[in-house]
């Protein structure tokens, strides 16, 4: 799973019927410290994430195991809204 920040939404009228009613978010990958990293991804939202929130995202076929995504043509899903990332002190 990767950490990401919600930076936008995607609206699509013509799409696979199994994606009907699903919210699509544009995510920017971030590091554990919160800094932007290279790469964007469009993911299905399963937890009700909002703009600028830090989220947890799964990629690949695991995304289909997220709630409501069974048998959907989905390879990225938002599965958690991050409250806190706790990093240990480096030795």
């Amino acid at each position, binding site marked *: 799973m990767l950490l990401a920040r919600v930076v936008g939404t995607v609206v699509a009228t013509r799409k696979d019927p199994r994606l009907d009613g699903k919210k699509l978010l544009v995510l920017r990958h971030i590091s554990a410290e919160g800094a932007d990293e290279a790469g964007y991804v469009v993911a299905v939202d399963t937890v009700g994430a909002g703009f600028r929130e830090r989220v947890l995202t799964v990629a690949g076929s695991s995304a289909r195991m997220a*709630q409501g995504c069974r048998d959907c043509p989905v390879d990225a899903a938002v599965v958690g*809204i991050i409250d806190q*990332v706790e990093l240990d002190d480096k030795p």
Partner: protein
Amino acid sequence: MFLARVVGRVWATAKDPSLESRKLLVLQPITPDGRERGRTVVAVDAVGAGAGEVVYWCRGRESSFPFLPGEVTTDATVVGIVDQISLAQS
């Protein structure tokens, strides 16, 4: 599978029900000789790993297999704690 060091934890209240009560670890992938390599990932813990430990983890759909018959939506899972790595001298 890959080697990594546990460098932190993630807390999330709103999450997929399959992730309820699962521990989420921040991993820094490392090379066999202990150097950091690549971006950090968040993985579900299947073995009880803790801070600073060197672990091995797997990626992809197989990462949900430790939790069968449950279907945990994860693409990275810690599946072992490393005791020792032996490397041939080159």
